[in-house]
């Protein structure tokens, strides 16, 4: 455990000096945050129209009328709250992108810097090495999640109709952000670690890790189309499934991390 913490400390110190790695996550976060504000606040203001007057958002009004604690919302606030709720799924992309970018680099970076041989020559076990690599990517990714969610809420409080902010603070929202987000990020970064154990180019690892982005995007599209709603039970089931995937990926990661191949085949 102490050895893993020693390496984790090194990972975080190294990341602080390699801030460019956070750029993809920051871009994803900014994009995910700005998009709903453009749809819910900026475009209606520029067009001089109210979203609640449009039939396109009838589904939002209907949904909020079914929620007893949200019935008192003004129609415009209800539509905005619905939009901000749907786009919350996209915020999951922030930790996923950040974790992938960091994790893919963390092993390939050691290969490229030829720093892995002395590391492997210490008493460090494979589990400790991979544990430190995974946590080294997950911790900053979770930090990004908290920061992005905080900014998102602050933006909603500042620019949206009164009541939309409170409507957003539901167990479902928190579940998506703080349960599904980290679990999806963990899966993405473990995929990236698995792949980066076998390749010499961080981009290859990032591309495979990007597979996690596809289901997130699919959930978002299905929600917007009104075909699926990521509510309480769905979040729990999804979290359980992701936890299972993550346990599987830990085992695969250890199996794929072949010290001998790394030392003898990497040039």
């Amino acid at each position, binding site marked *: 455990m102490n050895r893993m913490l020693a*390496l984790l*400390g*090194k990972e975080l110190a*190294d990341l602080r000096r390699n801030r460019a790695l956070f750029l993809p996550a920051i871009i994803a976060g900014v994009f995910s945050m700005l998009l709903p504000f453009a749809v819910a606040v900026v475009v209606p203001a520029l067009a001089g129209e109210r979203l609640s007057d449009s039939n396109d958002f009838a589904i939002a009004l209907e949904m909020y009328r079914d929620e007893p604690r949200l019935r008192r919302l003004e129609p415009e606030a209800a539509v905005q709250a619905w939009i901000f709720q749907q786009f919350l799924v996209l915020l999951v992309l922030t930790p996923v992108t950040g974790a992938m970018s960091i994790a893919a680099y963390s092993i390939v970076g050691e290969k490229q810097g030829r720093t892995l041989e002395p590391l492997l*020559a210490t008493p460090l076990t494979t589990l400790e090495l991979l544990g430190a690599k995974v946590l080294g990517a997950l911790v900053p990714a979770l930090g990004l999640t908290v920061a992005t969610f905080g900014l998102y809420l602050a933006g909603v409080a500042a620019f949206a109709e009164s009541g939309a902010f409170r409507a957003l603070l539901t167990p479902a929202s928190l579940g998506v952000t703080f349960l599904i987000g980290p679990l999806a990020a963990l899966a993405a970064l473990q995929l990236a670690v698995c792949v980066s154990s076998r390749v010499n180019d961080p981009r290859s690892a990032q591309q495979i890790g990007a597979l996690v982005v596809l289901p997130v995007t699919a959930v978002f599209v299905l929600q917007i189309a009104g075909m699926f709603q990521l509510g309480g039970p769905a979040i729990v089931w999804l979290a359980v499934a992701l936890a299972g995937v993550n346990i599987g990926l830990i085992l695969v990661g250890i199996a794929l991390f072949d010290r001998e191949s790394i030392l003898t085949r990497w040039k």
Partner: protein
Amino acid sequence: MLAASHLTRRFGERVAVDDVSFELAPGEIFALLGPNGAGKTTTMRMLAGLIAPSSGTVRLGAEVVSRHSAPRLRGRIGLLGETPGLWDRLSVRRNLLVYARLHGLADPAAAVDEALERFGLRDRGGEPAAQLSKGLKQRVALARTLLHRPDILLLDEPTAGLDPESARDLRELVLRLRGERRTIVLSTHNLDEVERVADRVAVMRARLLAVDAPAALHARLYGPRLRVTIGQPAAPFLGVLAKAGFRDVQAQDRTLSIAVGEHAAATPAIVRRLVEEGADVLSVMPEQARLEDVYLHLVGREDAQ
């Protein structure tokens, strides 16, 4: 202390190391010599427990290095690879501190301070590793290798690319470590370096071609020789020595190189014959073993086969 027994390592069809055996004593400097691809690095990695042999064993003290025991035994071994392998963005101190913690040292900060002092790096501790010269990086890497005070040191081409001054410093350090009874395995192409520091030399090309002290290797291949310097051109005296029973005599300028059975016994007869024939004998000394000759002879013979 450290013993390799019938070590063999295959990579697919290729045999990188073939039936290599040797045993090292505490405080011994053992040099591995061989051309590129001779299996030196693979042997070092097997000794360090980083890769497993296809067959054969490595024994550290009473324990066999296995997949199970390797993580623990690696705590008694220090491996310096072909490249320093420092984290460029981190400071020298931070680089060492991580390794001090990985080795579970009781007081990592104190161990790092001591290492910085010992290797003359105290003023460079705060600098990012990327800013150091190659020689300094190698010094930091060596400090890292020695942080946990290993019994066994495996140094893979430690002076490659170093300037002469840094290479000399490193050689002196290796000799100091021998004084501390640490066993050192040195893989290198630098024959001069080996002659200066190694107690024994192993010439290998996948398999061991020869293992012995440098002088003994030379004697084994060429036998003992005397080097006689005279005041006249040496060539006319070849026949004189041949008549006196010395079959292998070489002349170059004013120097004769003579194969003898035993230095002390042959010297008076040679000097007497040369003086009788009018030579002015200026000096007589045992011919110094040249490791380069031994190495090229062994590797050349292997090539011919």
